[in-house]
């Protein structure tokens, strides 16, 4: 019986410490020290309107923008997910073949052998904000044709928006698609 009483009192004490004090202490320090990051790294335009988050991918279909990865949830950031196709699932092959066919029509100047696999596979979150540098390079001819921006200039923009490995070691180099497209929009 004593165990029940002690458990209830311990639960109450620990709820105060682990839930209330811990969460609020992290929240208070976070909001004071790094409010932008603590609120979701939102990007605003000149009028102060939120146009996205630098950490969350968006859907781009206009040929004048760089496109992100396949997203089965169409970058709906109120959720997250993938279709979880196993490597042996025939639907994976069907979807990939369809993506390749679309690539051919949209990018007639770039051979399939230069199409990097990250562009035609679904990301883990469905919200991947990045593509590989090779995937950005492969889109230069199309974006250049649609916007009239010189290829060299686009090359420079890609380099400027490529984030390297953390500490030069951890993770992979990645191009932030939304930030790159904002630069493309400004350069138009």
């Amino acid at each position, binding site marked *: 019986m004593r165990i029940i009483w002690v458990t209830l009192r311990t639960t109450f004490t620990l709820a105060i410490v682990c839930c209330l004090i811990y969460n609020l202490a992290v929240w208070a320090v976070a909001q004071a020290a790094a409010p932008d990051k603590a609120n979701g790294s939102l990007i605003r335009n000149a009028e102060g309107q939120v146009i996205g988050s630098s950490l*969350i991918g968006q859907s781009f279909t206009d040929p004048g923008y760089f496109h992100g990865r396949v997203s089965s949830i169409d970058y709906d950031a109120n959720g997250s997910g993938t279709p979880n196709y196993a490597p042996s699932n025939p639907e994976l092959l069907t979807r990939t073949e369809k993506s390749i066919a679309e690539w051919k029509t949209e990018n007639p100047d770039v051979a399939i052998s230069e199409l990097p696999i990250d562009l035609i*596979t679904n990301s883990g979150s469905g919200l991947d904000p990045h593509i590989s540098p090779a995937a950005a390079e492969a889109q230069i001819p199309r974006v250049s044709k649609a916007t009239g921006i010189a290829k060299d200039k686009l090359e420079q923009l890609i380099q400027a928006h490529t984030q390297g490995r953390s500490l030069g070691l951890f993770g992979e180099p990645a191009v932030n698609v939304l930030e790159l497209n904002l630069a493309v929009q400004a350069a138009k």
Partner: protein
Amino acid sequence: MTVISILAIAVTLLIMIALAKPVGLYLAAAFDYAPNRINRIFSPIERILYKISGVREESQSWKMYALSLIGSNAIMIFIVYLVLRFQGMLPLNPAGIANMEPTLAFNTAISFMANTDLQHYSGESGVSYLSQISVLVFAMFVSPATGLALVMAFIRGLTGKAAGNFFVDLIRALTRVLLPVAFVSALLFVFMGVPQTFEPAATATTIEGTQQEIARGPIASFLAIKELGNNGGGFLGVNSAHPFENPNGLSNLLQILLMLLVTTSLPFAYGKMAGSIKQGRVLFVSMLMMLIVMTSISLTAEHVGNPALNALGIQHDQGSMEGKEVRFGEAQSAFYSVITTAAETGAVNTMHDTLTPIGGMVPLVNMMLNTVFGGMGVGFVNVLMYAIIAVFLSGLMVGRTPEFLGRKIEGKEMKLIAVTLLVQPFLILVPTAIALATNPDTISNPGFHGLTQALYEFTSSAANNGSGFEGLGDATPFWNISTGIVMFLGRYVSMVTLLAVAGSLAAKKPIPQSSGTFRTDTAMFGAVFVGVVLIVGALTFFPAVVLGPIAEQLTL
């Protein structure tokens, strides 16, 4: 895969090795009841907590220790259940999320208290902010603290000491380990870009003019204890694959180190408590070897990728990218999948369902063996159980009474261990067979992979890991109830039987070491230990693994 990606993994393992011993020595001192410097620092604060909670600092019998552990956890499961059932009417629910349905709340309450964090709901739509930061975070602190208390009591038993007091150990685990480390790492996560806000979802108008709702919340504080406590439950649906829950390579590194921090240090804590660091080091090195082998297999499989996609003529230097994030790439994704199942955390930064068959087999095997470090506390208790089996088998081979740390291993202990050993395959294989026979429509992928999906779900539940092959349509009463029961039994049966083993050994008179004693601190013993783990694991699970991932690989 580049040389840098492999170097990054090597550096991560080196940091882990460097941290293991000092953290282990700290843990040994932190849970020592004799006066020491750590006690002098923390005791004044803890006395206040004991006073409010009504905890008396007196040693408990082994039975009382086990009863306190199970009893308190059962009551807490019930409290978590109640809050989830009524979250819709409770405050701090800006998204207006409804009450959780009974079988799902049953599953979730057990899941979080059993250190599993299998999630049959999605964080963005299934739980309110209140549920996330109160009951779920509460369970994410208390369940690893329970595991840490268990391992300390178990080691005390093996070394002939009294059990200690469960509530004192529980509170010490929180004040001396989990809370301070979680607080510091939560702030580090914020500086890396993880949100910590109570604002509702943000609405953005994108460049192309569409509306985008962006879910966020107090993620950083949740994330820190999720990794440190080997919990693994994500704040957001896709867990650490979500850019908010793992924004870059640095946050990924910190998550991997947090998952490994306590569990890799326990062998050294054990060595210190047993009076010889070498006893612990041999187990540490054995497990490290297994971890390196698993990592190598997984990296190779993911780098080779999916032959079916590669055959389409695209550029596939990046390996298999389906279900992976660009910022992590194949190497950090594969490595994370190995670590999260070795340390029985269950957090994922890539979708395990989409891993190549062999890449998906590695996490599965890690959970089946449950001895490649293992989860917070319980993992190392399991490792010590295998060490006792190794001693017993060696004793049988040379015809001597086996001894472990100077105490005879006899019929009573081996019976309890045999029961513990048999429970795990029973909890995995029987429900998998039932699920495949009765619920085939919940399995999303055709062919051999479908079998792996069900097998993975129950293996993850029994090992209290919590990762999943998430294509499985598991938010149904069948899956909620079956995995709920498996998680509960997988967690608490072995806790009771192994505490009984510890109690029985503690009561024995130590016998002095002689030249005929089978030494447990040599490389020879390490090899026997690994052999026993692999033989027991292979005998039990090999047929299931052949029918699942291996068969799938052969069809690609």
